[in-house]
């Protein structure tokens, strides 16, 4: 861990630095899913598109495995954020009264 690691941004959406990631690995978290839940890296508006590769590379380097073996998180819908208003309006137009 070099002194500048807290200046290296890994997750731009949630401001998670390389120092945070390395601390997480040092604490014994060893998968992307765990690191995501402890640091929030990958939970922001871009859903990990920018940071998941960098974190996977850190894990691969730390545990001496190849990237093929790093267990990746899946992607959940939606691909791009969409407003509750647009969703509510869509429901309004096809309202399914059975649930009322």
């Amino acid at each position, binding site marked *: 861990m070099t002194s500048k690691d807290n200046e290296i941004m890994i997750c731009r959406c949630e401001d998670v630095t390389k120092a945070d990631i390395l601390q997480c690995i040092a604490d014994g978290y060893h998968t992307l899913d765990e690191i995501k839940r402890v640091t929030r890296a990958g939970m922001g508006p871009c859903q990990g598109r920018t940071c998941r590769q*960098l974190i996977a590379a850190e894990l691969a380097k730390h545990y001496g495995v190849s*990237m*093929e073996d790093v267990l990746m998180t899946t992607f959940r819908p939606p*691909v791009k954020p969409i407003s509750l208003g647009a969703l509510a309006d869509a429901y309004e137009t096809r309202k399914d009264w059975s649930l009322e």
Partner: protein
Amino acid sequence: MKTVEILVIGGGPAGLCAALSASALGAKVLIAERDEMPGGQLVKQTHKFFGSEKQHAGERGIHIGQMLLENAQAEPNIELWTSSCVLSIYEDGVVTIEHAGQHVKVKPERIIIATGAAEKFLGFPGNDLPGIYGAGAVQTLMNVDGVKPAQRVLMVGAGNIGLIVSYQLKQAGVEVEAVIEGSSKIGGYLVHASKIQRAGIPVLIKHTILEAYGDGQVEGAVIAQIDECWQPIAGTERKIACDTICLAVGLSPLTELAWQAGCEVAFIRELSGHVPIVNECLESTVPGIYCAGDVSGIEEASAAMVEGRLAGLCAAVSLSYGGAAAQTLIDDAKQELDELRAGSMGIHIREGLEKMALKSGQPKSEDDTLKSKSFAEIKSTLISDGIATADDIAAILPTPERFAKGPIAIAECFQEIPCNPCVKACKAGAITMPGDINDVPVVNGALCNGCGLCISLCPGLAIVVVDQTYSEDMAIVRLPYEYVPLPVVGTLATGLDREGNALGQFEVKKVTSGGKKNMTYTISLVVPKALAMDVRGVSVV
């Protein structure tokens, strides 16, 4: 709820071609493109494309994009939604799209995911400062919005994107301090590296960025040489003053929808990241969902277009369109892909696809001709900086006798890349490639009359014509030129060597346009005979 036979997600090169080939067989296609302007990468690729003329080689990306879009708009079987981002593929086969601000549901019978890729991010101190962009962002600002992205740029990465965007920055009047590359050789096509070296942009291999600095935005970067294990070598640190840092360190496929749909996705280094596993027909592990273009492995846009076409054909055939004729079209597309990937630049792609085939349970053994093919190994330092050495030149130098007969074309194209527009450009049939489009072009001095047509048609701007018979002690060098302002006939312009060094002021004899669409000019400079094989660039600025 809207039903459609084939939903193409992404209106870039792969998506447009998929829609065109599927609709041509009769299938009804809906394209959902998240941007206002379809064309994906094509809308910002102002350079000429490689490949063969089947993939519109020699034409500029932006024109290919316009042509594909016009064809798609003219095709009644294709419905095109722009500013429409596909949000999710759900378990019940329903796809949701944000279209015209609404949450629209579509039920397709087949899906072709052609969502392309995005720039990889890089970790170094200060890497989130304003002024640090993915190279694609700079291209968008420059070539789509017409905004000058920077004053002085440091380009990180010497793959095709890093080299091409540096060239386009120069065209837009932006200074590029340097292109740095971590590996020991240039990743992109060497002709692109030669173009920017001639323009005075150094390409530094075995270099990396240590940090970016600046108060509130980029003011500079610190770079350093690195050893084989990519560790910086103490003492080689150097500050580069720049207001912009461009990251061109590779693309990552945008595979979110494939993950959501439950397609198997695996990391394949040669295809540069996690890619959905597809079979020969580009069908993923989820029946009815196909993946084409950069989303299933990063290659050139030409390969993306052919993959799109292939996926469109296979999807249409699976809906029983096209009949027997379609099979030949499918085979043609597969053959074109093999051809595009047959060269030395395609080795890592083929290795990646072999791994893909293994994972998709269809191990395809590469045909032995391809495996045994030996490639013209570039031994000289050309591979590490894009500057042809004396030996490289000597190998293609015309004989004094031929020089004495009159002007002759010289193709400084030493790398086996999939590209053959020069062969088609030469009316005299003087330029040939023994094998396939990946071979290095050979100029037959006997047939070549030095007409120079090939100069403005070579996508790599690698061909010049030298006429040693111009006068007693002067020769004419005819060079490709794609900058502003244009040199003026009768005035003097600076002649540059292959490293961008000024060799002197030389008279501009002739300025000929390559044509409205071609847009590459040919500039004739009168130079001393002794410099005729050194002057390779011209600048008026």
